[in-house]
């Protein structure tokens, strides 16, 4: 879609006549006229691209020989609008990032929506527009999709699945098993923002400033990093659910190495730390949606840091730790007061303490 058309579309109000259909009906997923109207006026117009405009059951993409990365993720978040984003942009960024973490250049996405009967049409329009914007911003088209409607009370307004494919360039080899002693670990910015934004909203907590989600596409950052460092980038991961702590544990176990991180080096925004203190949460376990962890060869660490910092989403990037031969499979944190402790996986979600 040209930027020009995108702007025009943004200016338009919901293209499905809200006066006629202020809410999603079961029929919008039934395959008849209502379905068609939704697909044509809302999705095809918003996601506009050559592959999609074929209006076929699937998209046909021309790809060069090589390795294909393939990733899928379903998004359920309540509320579906939150400070700094919504379920639509979150879904696009999430899958774009999952592909990027495979070392791939994302090529195309699909969008599958499960709508709950009664969902306000205006909300769906906002979410669709947000998906289109996010896709354009990341430079990855949404080339195919699907819509189903479930009865009232059977869904949480809207569930979004975004699946994507991407190409992995020659020489790029990203895998948790490639973490090796001596590797330096970087984080691309301040952590725990997304999880805190959602929780503060759910709990009705207000702070001096509103914490917004960090949801962002990281494919540009990864492309720059891989272009410069190539095979010296060993592991890439976006610490979403479970946060930095869970991802580091998974990598340490997969690689059979130890990981040591320094609490003081990990960037956490002041308001996020404050919220975590109040809510009784550890920022290390809180979700991020626009951050990555990179494990790189020690001698390339400074270069990697400047590349991350030069990116529009990486200004606060930092070196936070290293891979060790000691304590294999375990993550050790050097605390602010000088003690050392194990950072383990949580059993389930973090539950706030009583007092």
């Amino acid at each position, binding site marked *: 879609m040209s930027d020009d058309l995108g702007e025009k579309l943004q200016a338009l109000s919901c293209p499905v006549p809200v006066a006629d259909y202020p809410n999603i009906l079961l029929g919008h997923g039934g395959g008849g006229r209502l379905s068609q109207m939704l697909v044509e006026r809302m999705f095809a117009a918003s996601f506009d691209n050559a592959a999609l405009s074929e209006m076929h059951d699937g998209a046909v993409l021309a790809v060069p020989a090589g390795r294909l990365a393939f990733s899928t993720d379903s998004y359920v978040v309540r509320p579906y609008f939150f400070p700094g984003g919504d379920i639509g942009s979150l879904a696009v960024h999430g899958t774009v990032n999952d592909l990027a973490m495979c070392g791939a250049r994302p090529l195309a996405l699909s969008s599958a929506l499960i709508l709950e009967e009664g969902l306000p049409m205006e909300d769906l329009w906002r979410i669709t527009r947000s998906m289109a914007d996010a896709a354009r911003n990341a430079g990855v088209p949404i080339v195919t999709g699907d819509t189903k409607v479930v009865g009232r009370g059977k869904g949480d307004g809207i569930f979004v699945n975004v699946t994507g494919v991407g190409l992995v360039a020659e020489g790029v080899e990203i895998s948790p098993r490639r973490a090796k002693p001596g590797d330096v670990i970087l984080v691309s910015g301040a952590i725990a923002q997304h999880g805190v934004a959602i929780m503060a909203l759910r*709990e009705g907590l207000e702070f001096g400033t509103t914490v917004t989600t960090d949801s962002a596409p990281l494919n540009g950052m990864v492309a720059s990093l891989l272009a410069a460092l190539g095979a010296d980038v060993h592991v890439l991961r976006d610490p979403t659910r479970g946060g930095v702590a869970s991802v580091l544990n998974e990598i340490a176990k997969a690689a059979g190495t130890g990981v040591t991180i320094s609490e003081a080096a990990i960037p956490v925004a*002041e308001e996020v*730390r*404050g919220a975590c*203190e109040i*809510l*009784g949460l550890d920022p290390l376990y809180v979700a991020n949606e626009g951050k990555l962890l990179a494990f790189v060869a020690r001698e390339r660490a400074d270069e990697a840091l400047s590349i991350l910092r030069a990116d529009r989403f990486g200004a606060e990037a930092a070196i936070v730790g290293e891979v060790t031969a000691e304590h294999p499979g*375990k993550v*050790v944190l050097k*605390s*602010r*007061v*000088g*003690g*050392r*402790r*194990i950072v*383990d996986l949580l*059993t*389930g979600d973090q*539950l*706030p*303490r*009583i*007092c």
Partner: protein
Amino acid sequence: MKFVDEYRNEESVRKVADSIRALVTLPWTLMEICGGQTHTLIKYGLDRMLPDLVTLVHGPGCPVCVTPLELIDRAVAIARRPDVTFMSFGDMLRVPGSELDLLSVKARGGDVRMVYSPLDAVKLAEKEPARQVVFFAVGFETTAPAIAGALLTAERLGLANFSVLVSHVLVPPAMEAILSSPACLVKGFLAAGHVCTVMGTHEYDPIAAKYRIPIVVTGFEPLDLMVGIRMTLAALEEGRHGVEIQYSRCVSPGGNVPAQKLLAEVFAPCDRPWRGIGVIPKSGYALTPRFERFDAAKRFDVETVTAEEPKVCIAGSILQGLAKPRDCAAFGKECTPEKPLGAPMVSTEGACAAYYSYGRE
């Protein structure tokens, strides 16, 4: 972050650790009362900065840990009723009852919700008069005033569909129970800062005098704990006893008087069983006659069958400072946070969970 970073400063903590090393000449065993303090000690590795002469044992101050199994079973049975919305603080939800925990009740269709404030439960009861809204009132003196406030609000609003399942416990009687045991090893206490923010310190004076023991009211940040430990050790080395306040930025000897008045209106002390320890006289709160109609235990006539506690679990000894988590044969083997045998492994404030999650195997 202001008012936090100062208390987590490596340099300051190390200086206090050094001065403790210079101070101690004899072996001493100290107990921190509160699970939040245990958590900080282990999380920051503070116990490892102390000289070998000093032993820290962990007290019973984890409200989740000492809630009797029978009461959790009762909570589960009430929460399973289709007419009930059951609300609780977060870490109570995963504590296993004889058959189920509250999160499993939710998974099976029960309306179980986590809240930060009991007032949210009152609000819900007001909004949905057709639902029975039950709040699981767990905690020490710290959280009790919020429950009392919620009950007074419910009374003012005339809510017939709001009730609380009371499981409040009190610190001073538990300290007495520990001190009066012939096996007691504790020579000094770090009292729980936030409990004393509400209650003040006067009720600790007779305990300090009777058992000739130093009691230092201590905060929860690393520096708070190190300074509290130093104050307790200094008193012991100098042969002094009595109550001192380390956490003076929050605690005054008189405490929070309006909160105490609320408590006196709503609650009266009663004998109460502590999980793993047994009944301690006058160590819990029951609703006063004026508020009895809000008692969920009386409102809902549910049948529960409570299983026996696993024999291998030594939670009771751990909660009384007679043993440490790693003294337990099941620790980290049959008993882990995924499959806890005793409550100190469930709650994040529990001593066993703190040892396990921070790698003290």
